[in-house]
C-alpha cells in the first residue's frame, strides 16, 4: 500500500511540475487535471471517500472544463 501511495505521489508531483513547465496552456490544464485525479486517488487511500468523490467530480471534471473553455477563449500559448 505504501508503495502504491509513493508511486502516486511521485506521479502527482511529476505532473504538477509538468503543469508548471508546459508552454502550451492546454497541456498544462491537462496536467493539472491529472494532479487532481491523482489527489482524488490519494484521498481514497487516506480513507476519505467523500472528499475523493468531490475531488474527482470537481477537480478532474469541472475545473478542467472551466479551464478548457477559458484557454479556448484566450491565448493558447504562454508568452
Amino acid at each position, binding site marked *: 500500500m505504501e508503495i502504491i501511495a509513493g508511486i502516486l505521489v511521485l506521479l502527482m508531483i511529476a505532473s504538477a511540475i509538468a503543469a508548471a513547465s508546459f508552454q502550451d496552456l492546454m497541456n498544462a490544464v491537462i496536467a493539472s487535471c491529472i494532479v487532481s485525479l491523482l489527489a482524488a486517488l490519494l484521498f481514497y487511500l487516506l480513507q476519505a471517500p*467523500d472528499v475523493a468523490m468531490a475531488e474527482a467530480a470537481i477537480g478532474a471534471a*469541472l475545473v478542467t472544463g472551466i479551464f478548457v473553455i477559458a484557454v479556448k477563449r484566450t491565448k493558447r500559448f504562454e508568452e
Partner: protein
Amino acid sequence: MRKLISIILLGMVATGLFMSISQIPFGEPGERIGDHFINQGVNETGATNIVAAVVVSYRGFDTLGEVSVLFTAAMGLGAVIGLVRRKKTHTPIEPASLIVYTGCRFLFPVILLVGTYIVIHGHLTPGGGFQGGAVIASAFLLMYLGCRGKRIRENLSRGLESLGGLLFILLGVTGLVIGRDFLFSFLPEGEAGNLISAGIIPLIYMAVGLKVGSELTGIIDHLIEDTDELPE
C-alpha cells in the same frame, strides 16, 4: 533574477515546512474532536456517514454560510459577465462528431442518475449534496461540450438554485418555529442504515445538492455563453 529569488525563498519556506511537518505525527491516534462525532454520531443524528453528519448536522450553520459563499461567487461571476456589453455576433457552432454526440446523449442521464443517487444516499454511504451536485454539474458540462447548442433554460437553473437555498433556510427555520434551535432535526431519526432515516439530513443534503448542482451548472452556462457570443 526573479526566478532565482523565488527559488531561494521557496527553498527557505520548504525548509521551514519540513522542520514543522516532521513534528506532526502521521497516522497516530491523538486527542480529536472527531472522536465524539464517531462515537456518538450515529446515535445522535441517525446518519451512518459521519462526514455527512458533521457537514449537515454538527456544522450545519457553517454549511449554510459556505453555500452562501458559493452563491456570492456565482453572483460575482454573473456580474462580471454582465459588465461588458458585447455586440452579439453569433458564430456558427461547430457540431461534434456523431460518436461524441451519441456518447454524450447516452451518458448524460446515467451521470445524472448517479449524481441523484449520491445526493439521496448521502447519509448512508460516502457522498452527499456537495459531491452529487458536482456530479450533476459535470453531467451538464458533458452536455455542453459534447452536444453543442443544447442549453439549460436559465430560469430553470436559477429557480432550482433558489429553491435549494430556500429549502435549506426553511428547514432551519422550522427548528426555530417548533421552539428549538436553528437547524434542529425535527424529524425522527429512524433506524440507522435505512434510506428514510437520520432526521432532516437527507432533506438538507437534497437542498444542498440542488443548490450546488444548479450553481455550478449556472457557472458553466455563463462561461459557455460568454465564449460563444464573443467574436473570434
